[in-house]
Structures are given as structure tokens and as C-alpha cells.
């Protein structure tokens, strides 16, 4: 779906390898256990009801998907259970050919019925089952005409169908077991992935071992994997102490420094953009944030380009970007971006203009509260930095950092002046990325409370355009409009830094920490 030249461009912005002996292609070796850490623990085991990497990292190796993202050439979609597919000329029907001889870990065969049952569970969850991304797939009708064929028919035209189907959360469950108990995936693991489940010690470890009945008899290379659930602060000592060899969510620059300082020769580093940013949400139902000039002025006071240099040394905040991830094919080119309020490279002029605009809007001695989560990385630096920037144009801001649950309660109730929100999903698709920029009618997370339906209209329009070029045009128009209206404005995008043991091969960093975690291609050079 995405043209390959673009995909290559995206990958080029990522992946810089420090260390020795990375380039030459080696023959993968079999065997070994991959030890890694995960800095959070999944509440339960159900992919369909989850949004967290804490579930994906331990569980992805246990399940097959219909199709998946290629870690090497993100955002290319490659086969998993579906060995091939065809798209009807009108782009309204997608037909997948399912591999034969695929087995679940209990030995039972996997057929198109299992794929259908799993997608039906996502699209129309039975009572008691949580399906997070239900609305995202609402336009699909799934059928299984024969054991090796699955057909997705679209009720309405839809962009990015293949990317949506490659979601790491769309685990394929056993239809027979779902019939007995639609909630079995919450407490039990029965997949067809490359690794079968060994055990989960709460608060401590997770183990999987090589599944000999995996459909690809050449994979996986590893004998198994073991996960240590630790607090983020314990990752660096754990890697240095040799207790585990990796953490795949991302480290901050300070931690990278500590690791390289102590064990440079044993480590490899990946760095690049991350499909996450922090943004300011202005509560447009409160004065003076209903005034576009005030919102723009507050955005213009923030030195993004200068802040990027400094903040990227102490936090994961780094890249200057709009609503789409910088470097992504549909994002606004930098030349366009710098023309928008808040993105100028001349910060002194920006600040002067901002002061004048506030004065003109009658908000000269503006004081407000900035609502934020009390999470050290990267929320606290974003809050501290913004407040410092605003003080420079004479705006006094009080930082209100709350626990996540209290924060969410306030944001959902609209009880805030300006909030620090984040934008994230498992991929770059605009349909996912724009969710927080919409009106409340269209999106439950349209926290800014604006009623400007122009963004909604453009959003609905781009969703229905299957042609990438045409869609890009609409998306850029939408982005320009959204950033000019400034109901929400990105502060900075995140940098993803992965520091892992050099012996780990076949793992590639994508801009999303949700992807390429099924470990089928990973091997240890030892």
C-alpha cells in the first residue's frame, strides 16, 4: 500500500548502529534464550482488550496475526498466517489465503474459521469482552468461505486496510475455545505463534519456549525467551549486571550514556523517531483559550527548535513535528511546517509577536494552570520546559501534576485550562493519529472541547480515500488547519533509543515499540 521508496526513507531516519561488526550479513544461529526486560506488566492476557506494550512484548511471540508489519521495512505489511492476498479493483474486498497445516500450541489445526472468529470478537465483542479498537474495524465484514480463505468486505471505502489488519493487538484465537468461553484469552494463552507459553510469575518473570509445531519449520531461531518485569530505573543496572540483555520500549539519553560508558563494547544502539509526541491541549470551553490568538501566542512562546537540542539530552523529547510524525510519508515537509504558528525558527520574533497577540486579545497578564501527569519521563520535562518558556513572555503558569487516574478524570470532565496530553498508536496512520484533534462528537478523546467540524470533515474524508497521494493531500490540509487553529499543539515528538546486547540479531527498530516483537527472526550470535 505504501510505496517502497517512501518506506525506505522512513527506515533510513532510524537505525544507527554503534559498535563493531554490524554490517556483514551472517548466517543466523539456532538456540539460546533471549533474556529481556519489560518495564510494566499486563493486567491480563487478552490482546483485543489491550493497548499496552506491556502486553505486546510478552505475548506477541505466542500468537500469529493475519498479516504483520515488517520490522526491517516499516511500514511494509508482510504475510503471517495469510500467505498471500488480493485486493479487488474497487478496493472494497480483500481476500486472504490462509496457510495450510498451521497448528495451535495444543496441536489443534488453525483454519480460516479461527481468523473469522477472532475478527468477529474484535468487531462485535460478546457481552463481557472488551474490544478496544472495535470502532476502527466497524466497516469490515468477515467471512470464511473455505478453510483456507478469509474475505474482508468493506461497507464503506477505507484507507489503510492492510495496516489496520497488521495490528499487533489482533491476535488470532481458537474459534472452538472462544465458543466455550469467549473470555478465555484473558487468563489463558493458546496461540499459534513461534513460542508456546511456559509461565508467568506475577511481578517477576514471563517465559516462553520454542514451539516445534510452528508453521515455519525454519523458525524461530531461539529456544525460548524470558522476561523480567522491572521498574524502568532497574533496566540499566540489569543490563550492566548481565541479568538481561535488552529492553525494547526505549531508554532515555542519560541511560544510553550510562550504558555506553560502562559496557560500550557489548552493546548496540538504535536511534530514531518514535510514533509518540506530547502536545498541549487547550480547553477551548474556558476563557481565554477560546481565542485562537491566545492559543497561537502560547504555542509561539515555546522554542521548539532550541528546546529540541537541550531536551533531547535529558529526556526522550526530541523531534520538532506537527500532527504526523516527522519523517513519515504523509507529514508536512519542514518548509511548510516552519510557516505555521509556533514552528518558526526565529524564537525572539515569535516571542515578541506572542506578547503583542496576548495584549491584543486582552490576556496580557495571563495566569493559568497546566495539568499534567506525574510521570517523570517525558511529562515532567515537558511541563517544566513549557512553564519556563511561558514565563519568558510574562505568562505565569502553575504546574498541576497528578497521578494518571486523577489526571484522566480531570481531562475527561474538561476540568482544566491547558493539559499535557500524548499522542500515540502502534502506527502512523492519520485515522489513528488525529483522534485527539477531533470534536467530542466524533472522538471520545477530543479533550479540547472545540466544535470546529472542519477537522472532522477532512478526517472523515481522508478515511475514505484509498489512493495514498490523494489522501496525503487531504491529510496535509487537515494538519495545516489543525495547527493553525491550535486547539491542540504538539510540543515535541519522542526519540526512540534502544540499547541492547550486541549478540542480539534479527531485531529491528521501528518507530513503534509495539511492532516486531514476535521474535520469530531474532537470533543470538553466541
Amino acid at each position, binding site marked *: 500500500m505504501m510505496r517502497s521508496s517512501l518506506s525506505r526513507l522512513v527506515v533510513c531516519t532510524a537505525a544507527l548502529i554503534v559498535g563493531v561488526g554490524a554490517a556483514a550479513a551472517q548466517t543466523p544461529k539456532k538456540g539460546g534464550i533471549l533474556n529481556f526486560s519489560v518495564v510494566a506488566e499486563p*493486567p*491480563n492476557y487478552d490482546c483485543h*482488550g489491550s*493497548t*499496552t*506494550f506491556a502486553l505486546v512484548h510478552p505475548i506477541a511471540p505466542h500468537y500469529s496475526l493475519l498479516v504483520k508489519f515488517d520490522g526491517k521495512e516499516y511500514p511494509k505489511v508482510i504475510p503471517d498466517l495469510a500467505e498471500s492476498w488480493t485486493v479487488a479493483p474497487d478496493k472494497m474486498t480483500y481476500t486472504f489465503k490462509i496457510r495450510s497445516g498451521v497448528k495451535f500450541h495444543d496441536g489443534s489445526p488453525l483454519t480460516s474459521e479461527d481468523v473469522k472468529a477472532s475478527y468477529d470478537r474484535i468487531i462485535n465483542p460478546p*457481552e*463481557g469482552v*472488551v*474490544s*478496544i*479498537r*472495535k*470502532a476502527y474495524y466497524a466497516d469490515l465484514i468477515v467471512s470464511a468461505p473455505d478453510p483456507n480463505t478469509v474475505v474482508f468486505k468493506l461497507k464503506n471505502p477505507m484507507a489503510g486496510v492492510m495496516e489496520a489488519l497488521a495490528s499487533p493487538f489482533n491476535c488470532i484465537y481458537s474459534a472452538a475455545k472462544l465458543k466455550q468461553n469467549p473470555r478465555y484469552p*484473558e*487468563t489463558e494463552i493458546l496461540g499459534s505463534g513461534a513460542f508456546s507459553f511456559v509461565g508467568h510469575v*506475577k*511481578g*517477576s*518473570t514471563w517465559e516462553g519456549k520454542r514451539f516445534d509445531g510452528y508453521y515455519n519449520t525454519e523458525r524461530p531461531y531461539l529456544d525460548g525467551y524470558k522476561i*523480567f*518485569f*522491572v*521498574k524502568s*530505573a*532497574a533496566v540499566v*543496572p*540489569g543490563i*550492566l*549486571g548481565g*541479568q538481561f540483555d535488552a529492553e525494547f520500549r526505549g531508554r532515555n539519553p542519560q541511560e544510553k550514556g550510562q550504558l555506553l560508558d*560502562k559496557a560500550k563494547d557489548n552493546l548496540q544502539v538504535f536511534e530514531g523517531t518514535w510514533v509518540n509526541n506530547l502536545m498541549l491541549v487547550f480547553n477551548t470551553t474556558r476563557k481565554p483559550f477560546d481565542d485562537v490568538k491566545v492559543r497561537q501566542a502560547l504555542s509561539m512562546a515555546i522554542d521548539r527548535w532550541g528546546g529540541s537540542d537541550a531536551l533531547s539530552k535529558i529526556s526522550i523529547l526530541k523531534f520538532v513535528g506537527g500532527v504526523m510524525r516527522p519523517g513519515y510519508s504523509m507529514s508536512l515537509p519542514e518548509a511548510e511546517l516552519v510557516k505555521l504558528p509556533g514552528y518558526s525558527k526565529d524564537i525572539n520574533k515569535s516571542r515578541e509577536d506572542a506578547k503583542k497577540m496576548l495584549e491584543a486579545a486582552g490576556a496580557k497578564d495571563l495566569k493559568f494552570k497546566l495539568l499534567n501527569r506525574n510521570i517523570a519521563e517525558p511529562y515532567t520535562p515537558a511541563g517544566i520546559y513549557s512553564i519556563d518558556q511561558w514565563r519568558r513572555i510574562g505568562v505565569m503558569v502553575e504546574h498541576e501534576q497528578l*497521578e*494518571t*487516574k*486523577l489526571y*484522566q*478524570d*480531570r481531562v*475527561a470532565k474538561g476540568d482544566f485550562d491547558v493539559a499535557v496530553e*500524548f*499522542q*500515540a*498508536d502502534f502506527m502512523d496512520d492519520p485515522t489513528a493519529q488525529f*483522534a*485527539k484533534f477531533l470534536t467530542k462528537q466524533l*472522538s*471520545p*478523546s477530543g479533550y479540547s472541547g472545540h466544535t470546529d467540524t472542519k477537522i472532522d470533515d477532512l478526517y472523515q474524508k481522508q478515511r475514505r480515500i484509498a489512493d495514498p497521494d490523494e489522501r496525503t493531500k487531504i491529510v496535509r490540509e487537515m494538519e495545516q488547519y489543525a495547527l493553525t487553529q491550535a486547539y491542540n499543539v504538539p510540543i515535541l515528538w519522542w526519540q526512540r533509543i534502544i540499547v541492547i546486547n550486541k549478540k542480539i540479531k534479527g531485531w529491528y527498530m521501528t518507530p513503534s515499540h509495539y511492532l516486531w516483537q514476535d521474535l520469530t527472526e531474532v537470533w543470538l550470535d553466541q
Partner: protein
Amino acid sequence: MVWFLIRRLLLVIPTLIGVAVAVFFLIRVMPGDVVVVKLRADGAAVSEETIQAERRRLGLDKPLYQQFADYMVGLTRLDLGKSLWTGDSVAREIAIRIPVSFQIALMATIIAVLIALPLGTISALYRDTWIDHSVRVLAVSGLAIPSFWLGMLIILALLSLFNWLPKIGYVSIFEDPLTNLSALIWPAISVGYRYAAVSTRMMRSALLEVMREDYIRTARAKGVWTSLIMRRHALRNALLPVVTVIGLEFAFLIGGLVVTEQVFNINGIGKLFVDATARGDFNLIQGLVLFIATIFIFVNLLVDILYAWLDPRIRLS
């Protein structure tokens, strides 16, 4: 003695019921919703309908009086309910974390007693000398050092002096005593230091008090060796306040665990409590508070019994 015990035990029940009721209503005043945290915290645009369905499934949509009735009925069967976060039983969630926290608490107590008994005794014996002064200063600063800061200093010292850090993850002492002790001794010291300081002060002043009493004077007059007095009479009487301190300081021990487990990345009761409050997991918070309160009450009960046993005058009154 028996009546004393029964009376004390009977008092425990209304207190525990009071705790149960208080915590139930207290945490329900708390804004924030565990379902929203669980489903929306990672940024997904989850519909209100999905949130409501999940609340229904967890029984959070029921009227408060009904939730309260369910909870109280559950308590009579010693059923603490299920964690709203993991869906696992609260009892199990707690049980998994007991061994490590219990071991740290025990080790901290042992460290405290091992330090306090000799230091307190020496300090009292060499009253107003430089030994006494330095012990006292040490003890007062022990009260002042925050346990989490001490923990950070310990980590810093281990790292910069030995380039070594304890292993992450709990290994049972029966499985691998060396790994277990090398990991847990540090949090035990950070928590136990304060404990030791308090006990030392108590030990000292108790001994001084006792030594002023007549029968010790008589003993000394009779020419009994000072050391013998210490062992026979003074020590036994001086143990009374030390035992009290252990009971009183138990609350601090729990507090110390809550913060120190964060510093040392230990998967214990303290960390579970911090996580549960952060998520708004009502059932788990209730269960944990009741659990901690029960232990707390029983430790104090035990202290009272010990006290009564050590000092017959109390029993009679």
C-alpha cells in the same frame, strides 16, 4: 492473663470492622476510575460504551450500598474479592508479595536489635562520656535520615566502590540463600537503620531509669559486678520499652517498605500498595489496608502480651 487476652482480642474485632468501613468509603470518594486508567491510559480512543460495559462487568455500576453489602458479606467469608486491575483474587495478589516484604521486615528488626542492644547498653553504662555522646548523635541522626535516601546512597556506594549491584528479582532464601541475602540486605539496612536508632535511644533511657531504681542500687552496694546487674535485673526490665518500640515502630517499618521497595525495585507489599493506589484498584487497596491493619493490630497485641508477661504489675492492674 486469660481474661486480659480475651478482652484485648474482643477489642480487635470492632476496630477491624471500623477500618474496613472507613477504607471502603474513603477510597470511593477518590476521583478517577480504574476502568478508564486500564483502557485509556495508553492513548486509545475507547468509546464510552466500552468503558460502561467493563464497569458493568466489574460491578462498579451497582449502587454504593449494594457494593458495600457485597464487600461486607465477602469479608465474613474472609473473601477480599478480585483485583479490578488483573481480575485475580486479592488474596493471591497479596500472598505472592508477602515473602519478600516479610523477609525485609524481619531482617530490619534483627539488624535493629543487634545494633540497639549493645549500643544502648554501652551508652547507658558510660553515661555522659564521649561514647555516650557519639551513640546519641548517631541515634538522633538515624531518626532523621529518610530511608529512601539512605537506600539511594547505598546503591550509589555499591556502584561506585564495587561496580556491583544486587540482582533484580526475588529468589527465595531456601533456593539460593547467597543471592537472596545479597539482594535483600541493602533494603533491610535502609529500613532497619531508623529502627535501630529508635531502639538504641529507648534502650539507653530505659536502662538509666532502671539503674536509678532502688533494687539496683542495693545490688551494686552488695558488690555485684556491674555486668551481672546488667544481665539479671536491668536488662530484663529494660526490655519492656524496647518491646514497645518494636510495636510502635512497626508502622514506620511499613512506611519504610513503601518507599524503599521503590528505590530497590522490589516486588513487595509496598510496591503493590503504591501501584494499587495509582490505578484506583479499590478491591486491592481495601484488601491491602485491611491486611496491613490486621498485622499492625496483632503486632501491637503481641507486644502488649509480651509486656504483660515481662512485667507482672501490668497484668494485675
